[in-house]
């Protein structure tokens, strides 16, 4: 199985996402922002970082990158897509996911190991978890406060599209402590915490994040 990792100018955790893909037993494939080409991959990860320096608004410029013109229709046709941190912000800007990420309520960048609850285990990226399972994964962001209008939030709750929630402290003031959401079909998932930094206890607080990647590997025939 081949999983693409997109590098935008200013992407930072692309190398880490590729490592997580490898540890999950799949082959990471580099995708370049300027190429209108997904190189035939079976799934795509938009990694963390500061695409275009977060200028204008996080993710606002990256959504217009040439590679996105291929990604958006593919995602709408069911391609598994995971957005981590800045990748989540880009997916929201591209309207593949509902809502928006705004400045942390504390107005400071927050790096912290957090307890999260996996609430939806039917998505392409969370099948390897059990419902309600608690995991420990780092968060590191300055604009991670999830926001949406009340109607959208109600819809997300009703349809089970809240995939991951902060279990303890709400570190950034996110609405309903939402850490990650999916689209209605469950193939597109975005989250602010960094599962790719929790794939090995040597370099992270746990290996709990690895199953986001094994979830998609198990699902797509290789």
């Amino acid at each position: 199985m081949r999983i693409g990792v997109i590098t935008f100018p200013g992407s930072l955790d692309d190398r880490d996402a590729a490592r997580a893909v490898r540890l999950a037993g799949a082959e990471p494939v580099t995708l370049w922002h300027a190429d209108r080409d997904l190189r035939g991959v079976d799934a795509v990860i938009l990694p963390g970082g500061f695409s275009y320096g977060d200028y204008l608004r996080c993710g606002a410029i990256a959504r217009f990158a040439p590679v996105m013109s291929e990604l958006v229709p593919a995602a709408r046709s069911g391609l598994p897509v995971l957005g981590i941190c800045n990748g989540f912000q880009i997916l929201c800007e591209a309207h593949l996911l509902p809502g928006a990420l705004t400045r942390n309520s504390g107005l400071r960048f927050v790096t912290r190991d957090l307890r999260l609850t996996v609430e939806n285990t039917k998505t392409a990226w969370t099948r390897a978890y059990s419902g309600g399972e608690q995991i420990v994964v780092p968060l590191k962001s300055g604009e991670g406060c999830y926001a949406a209008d009340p109607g959208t939030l109600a819809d997300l709750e009703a349809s089970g599209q809240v995939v991951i929630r902060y279990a303890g402290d709400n570190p950034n003031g996110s609405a309903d402590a939402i850490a990650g959401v999916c689209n209605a079909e469950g193939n597109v998932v975005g989250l602010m915490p960094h599962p790719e930094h929790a794939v090995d206890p040597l370099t992270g607080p746990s290996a709990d994040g690895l199953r986001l990647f094994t979830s998609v590997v198990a699902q797509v025939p290789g």
Partner: protein
Amino acid sequence: MTADTVARAMATPSMPQPFAELGLTADEYDRILHTLGRRPTSAELALYSVMWSEHCSYKSSKVHLGQLAPAAPASAALLAGIGHNAGVVDIGQGYAVTFKIESHNHPSYVEPHQGAATGVGGIVRDILAMGARPVAVMDALRFGPASAPDTGRVLPGVVSGISFYGNCLGLPNIGGELDFDPCYAGNPLVNALCVGVMRHGDLQVAAASGPGNKVILFGSATGPDGVGGASVLASAAFGGSVGAKRPSVQVGDPFLEKLLVECCLELFAGGLVVGIQDLGAAGVACATTELAAGGTGGMRIQLDAVPLRDPSLGPPEILMSESQERMMAVVEPGRVAEFLAVCAKWDVRAAVIGEVTDTGRLVMTWHDEVVVDIPPGSAADGPVYHRPLARPAAQDALAAAGPSALPRPADGPGLRADLLALIGSPGLADKSWVTDQYDRYVRGDTVLAMPEDGGLVRVDEATGLGIALATDGNGRYCRLDPYLGTQLALSEAYRNVAVTGAHPLAVTNCLNFGSPEDPAVMWQFAEAVRGLADGCAALGVPVTGGNVSFYNQTGISAVHPTPVIGVLGVHDDVRRRLSTGFRAGDDDLVLLGRTEAEFGGSAWAHVRHGHLGGRPPAPDLAAEQRLAGLLAAAAAAGLLAAAHDLSDGGLAVALAESCLRGGTGCRVRLPGDPFTALFSESAARAIVAVRPGSEAAFAELRIAHGVPGETIGHTGGDALAVEGWFTIPLAELAAAHTAALPALFG
């Protein structure tokens, strides 16, 4: 625009020039006249003023720094030493590491956010210019009293600047220091360290060789920011209005720096670069003179080809501008097109601005008229001063006013209260308020980061090869005795690397001092450098480079002499790293080293009595070496569950930190006088937790390494219990430790 050309300079020999405003003395101006045989043009004057600034020329420190290289032990690991952008050491398996620490003190006081941000940017480009991929940063920060209103302005700005720049650049921040002292009010110390990794063959040189090769300026366009930063800001003491100096502070764009890093690494990999230099202090002036002086000797530059952000800039401003995120490369003519294509791929602007010549002259033109024509070595080498130095008379009185008369706690409640006060004091409190603003995870190779003693980064996933880093400094010790204080800083950084299980390998330094024009400050400086040279020789680790920051004073009061010492170590297998955290499991606690009653300059005297006097602890470099050898061997053999160095606040603070780090308590019996056992700051000590079943093997190893040690208790429980004296529940310990900084800074 009419430029002051060489022809005009010759025609108007007696035109008055503003050399004093640019920071040059009358003697230095005369020296320029003598070198050129005419008055300098305004562009040449600008160039000499920044190149001969204290910051760029090391004119006051050179005569002392000269002893570092010869005093350094012959080390096969040293691939490039002092004099390069950064030193390079061999860490085995074909890898080389380059690291350096630099100050950005004055800009960070004037404009804390941008000042600290561009400090990170500058040191990262130094590492990049050596051919390495930057892999981690650290910051050693010192501020005035934590409760002072101005610290409330400076500290949050500095931290947000480091966070903004380092996080966006994608470099994990793996450690550093945070301390407070009234001497840093009005002159904070903001020292940034960067470390990079490369393969042996990747080493780049800062030299313009090969006549006909093209000189390319790439990265950001040049603007009016930071004009004269090196001369006006970094090389003079503060007085008068800080706001008026704000235009001398540069403005950083970490996104562009990230692109520049990736662009440079692709250029290096493609073999497209003959020589390269980063643009930092003194901008184009420094890059051109140093490249030319280091290479064939001549260069011809068209200043009007420099891409500008502000079209009104003329030659002097272009030469002096410290606009960030710029690099200069020397490229063979036949590879220029490939070079420019790589820049275009990364959206990095690039312009050919000149070429290498064999004339021995650095010639610059402005719309075809010559505005600079100098021998580059005359600017690159600069003057050398033997500044007068004198041991201040008050030094003896300070040494005599030791801490022996200070009232000491004599019972359990008193000792308990002092421990809580220490771990709740701003300098020793939990630093999460600061470090949570830094990304320590990016790149996925961070094995240890703050609050561990040293940072540890994996270099090779397959073999587990890694590098450990620590920075340490102690202004209080150095104020009491700069020679011993510097050796104590070196000892502590060396020990902090050793407690991760790594072998210390090399040293960098950032020497923060007051005005070199004050003989007392120069004495402190000379003593510190001598202490460092002797210390490195004794420990067998070479100094690979460093930075001097003078004029750290507001008015007549200088900061404590504060050499910040960085030590790099190599870890054979990061999977065998040691953490400071205790774990549940009834591990024996062994106190390593010898404890004497040493309280001069201690955290206890500072926090409990606001006292500074007496003599600092006695360094014992041979004991440090034995301790480091033991820790590396014990880590490799898997005998230890935790290790923590003893320094500020002694055993008491170390035990508290290890308990909180691991979320597990401990029970200890104190040998001898409990106050001394808890709070003395004797050097060459560590506390280790021995894995059950390994007690005998560790004792044997300890004896073989000649390290004194005593089993003082064991880990476990949910309190720090000192038998016969006091018990502190972990929750109470944690509350005292974590409350301080949020209460101060929100």
